[in-house]
């Protein structure tokens, strides 16, 4: 593929592996034959099929998470050449043009590693519960259509609703730090989840959850229950933790205006706190 400018028929993958939680991580190299239109997923598929290191040693295949492969499900987030992004839309030729000969894969650093590139992102979803990211309708019975909405309102909300909980924003956020609780012997999944949730619930929500709170507060029905969401945003681990580094918006694969959401959330919560004070 000399026309692609990197001039090699194969390339090396440098992958940071880890056999399980709490185990030591280690680097491993695999050599991959170049094919047209490869992305990082198809490279991982090759490794799954023939897992041999550059030294010819047969190893267990690399574990990774993926599903849609069209960058709408958010599953395959990892660090590719140091950048947080989805593996499916990371095209090998582009990566090799930026940095010839080698591609580096690491698991996200803000979540506990389960195995290799698979991490536990349940905290992302827990944040959505904390900000009550839903419309609390009375019933699913037929009540006619929802309120009419201006085109401009739809155009403001739609980009926020494209958030796929991939975790790029929190990976890049300096204020979002890893929480990893080792499993206790004899503990089942439910007990572990309860223990984790207690930790999560006072730690930083993350930009994605702040933006989702604003999405639901923008919705004509969601507006009626804006108060509890604003309470969540001002509770411990809320919006006050944001240090305005603006990394989140820079790495969002869906180009969601996260910092705009955060700024709006800042104003709304200030107003909300003052109102609560004077209404006492």
């Amino acid at each position: 593929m000399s026309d692609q400018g990197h001039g090699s028929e194969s390339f090396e993958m440098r992958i940071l592996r880890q056999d399980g939680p709490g185990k030591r991580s280690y680097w491993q190299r695999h050599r991959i034959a170049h094919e047209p239109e490869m992305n990082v997923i198809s490279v991982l598929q090759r490794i799954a099929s023939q897992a041999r290191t550059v030294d010819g040693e047969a190893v267990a295949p690399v574990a990774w998470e993926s599903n849609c492969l069209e960058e709408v499900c958010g599953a395959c987030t990892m660090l590719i050449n140091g950048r947080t992004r989805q593996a499916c839309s990371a095209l090998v030729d582009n990566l090799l043009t930026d940095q010839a000969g080698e591609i580096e894969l690491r698991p996200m650093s803000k979540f506990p590693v389960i195995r290799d590139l698979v991490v536990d992102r349940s905290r992302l979803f827990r944040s959505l519960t904390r900000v009550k990211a839903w419309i609390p309708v009375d019933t699913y019975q037929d009540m006619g259509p929802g309120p009419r909405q201006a085109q401009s309102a739809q155009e403001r909300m739609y980009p926020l609703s494209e958030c796929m909980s991939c975790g790029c924003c929190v990976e890049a956020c300096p204020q979002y730090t890893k929480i990893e609780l080792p499993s206790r012997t004899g503990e089942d999944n439910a007990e572990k989840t309860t223990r984790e949730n207690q930790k999560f619930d006072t730690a930083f929500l993350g930009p994605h959850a702040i933006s989702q709170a604003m999405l639901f507060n923008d919705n004509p029905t969601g507006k009626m229950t804006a108060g509890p969401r604003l309470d969540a945003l001002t509770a411990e681990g809320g919006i006050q933790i944001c240090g305005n580094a603006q990394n989140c918006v820079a790495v969002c694969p869906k180009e969601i205006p996260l910092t705009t959401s955060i700024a709006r959330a800042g104003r709304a919560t200030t107003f909300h706190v003052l109102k609560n004070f004077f209404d006492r």
Partner: protein
Amino acid sequence: MAKQRVIVIGGGLAGLSATMELAMRGIDVDLVSLTPVKRSHSVCAQGGINSVNDQTRLLGDNEWKHFDDTVYGGDFLQHQPPVNEMTEWAPRIIDLMDRLGVTFNRTVEGFMDHRRFGGTLFKRTAFAGATTGQQLLYALDEQVRRWEAEGKVTKHEFWEFLAPVIDDDGVCRGCVIQDLVTMQFRALRGDAVVLATGGCGLVFGRSTMSMVCTGGAVSRAFQAGAKYANAEFIQVHPTAIPGADKLRLMSESARGEGGRVWVPRKGQDPRNPNEIPEAERYYFLEERYPEYGNLVPRDIATREIFNVCVYEGLSVEPNRQCVYLDLTHIPAEELDRKLGGILSIYEKFQGVDPRFTPMKIFPAVHYSMGGLWADYERSASGGLEIGSPRNQVTNIPGLYAIGECDYQYHGGNRLGANSLLSCIFSGLIVAPGIENLLKSSDAGSAEDQSESLYEQGIAAERARQDALTKRPAGGGNPYEIHQQLGDVMTKAATVVRHNKDLEAAYQTVSDLTEQAATCSLSDTGNWTNQNLAFTKSLQDMFPLAKTILKGALQRDECRGAHFKPEFAMPGIECEDPAEQRREAEVWCDQFEKKNQRWLKSTVAELDDAGEPQLTYEEVDTSLIPPRPRLYGLVGAEMIEEVWKERATKAEKSAGATSS
């Protein structure tokens, strides 16, 4: 009384709508999913969701016409009462999704905006940009999260369904699941188990489907005795972006918004497509189907694109089959507003901006019309008896199937933007039926079942796993076997089917079944073992693959997506009116004969040797009499005339008998 629970397997649109509706009715739900439910395959649906709406009503549309388009598009292979009920509910379902916060596109006046999809002349499709499936899924995911926060729903994410637990009376009492992180087994007790596990695209290797769409769960139910129907009806989507790992969907909405399909009149014309003048472009769908144009039903668009490339040699590229899908005549800002999501997918994965350069696309396996056989109870008015525990139940009492994994709604071919509808609809209506099942006194409770029933289920799965992990190295490679399976299935059983190819493919698939049974794992560990999970799913693809092939082989006709040129009924070519009429009569005779033989659902059961055995089930077509699908057929007017005369006559004689 013991606490009753329901288990829902799969967290796409169908599984989530069932879960939230069950929870709203006060029923506790265990929700099992291979992925966090927010990452389910429904996110890939792009174009929209169909219903009659206020704007189409003004043009004379109604629920019955939506029903009619759906069964006509499906070549009359669906039982009509469930479809009738679904199209009746469609406007209410859109209203509900609107109330749940889906960011549907709006008109200037603030009403919901709509676009046109294939197989209809009305603009019935509501949409949220070009990520409608994602938006609908998120709204349901949010509702389920709300119920989870209230303690009504327990999620088991990264858990895989391995088998239903069936008691001595043949009733489903729960299931065995496996944690894909720790690999531990667990049996869940449930008073009903609802499978909402989607399609089986991975049987074809690469498709537009997501990595979880292996068909594994459905196959395990099939192997446990559930019937599987209409397997051979696989939708091949006309427009997908070829890729090494996946064939990415390019939504029908690209054509709904005015996209035009063409090839240069000269095959493999090396010029930049933008420099090829209009006169040298062949807009083959518009020329051959003046009424529907680029929006003919999917099976027809697929076949035409396939023909133009494979048989007419007009592919755009010399080494790869593809045609142009052109949006460049539409202003870029309009495209951004209505199709932004899918156009950015094309740009991201192909590195070409489709707003200024025509896209290159080719058909790809997209949807399984067939699925687990499911029952329904017909109401007096020709719809469904809502609240009947029979609705959506498989032949195994207590085991239900909804969404893409049932066979109920799309017949021989699914219309675009009807799948999101059928998924949400079947999810919503399964809940009241199950509620009544739980209330009925004779149902008993899973809590009262003996522990040994569940222990046996786990033991069987553990034995299966041990057999795999303890196998010596040197056997077949599961990933290579999967690729071979995909190749043979794609070649023999997609757009065009020939009996001799299907027979040969069945033999190859049987050989591959043996190889898969003795393949070796490269990871025999007991922690997040993806190699093991994949190999089990691979092995479970074979019963489905065989059923698809056998169904296609035996069905000697053309219907919907199932196309066998040997049994095609070409149009009538002659010019002379009298002769034309005579030929039309013959054509209609043939059509009636064909329907007598083949207007039947294929129903498969696995025998003890694991081979599918097929029977054929009558289709309830009592509401709209079947008629020939005549999109673009030569001589269609005359055939239609003759057919209408016959239909009128039949109606009259039926009236005379009944009076």
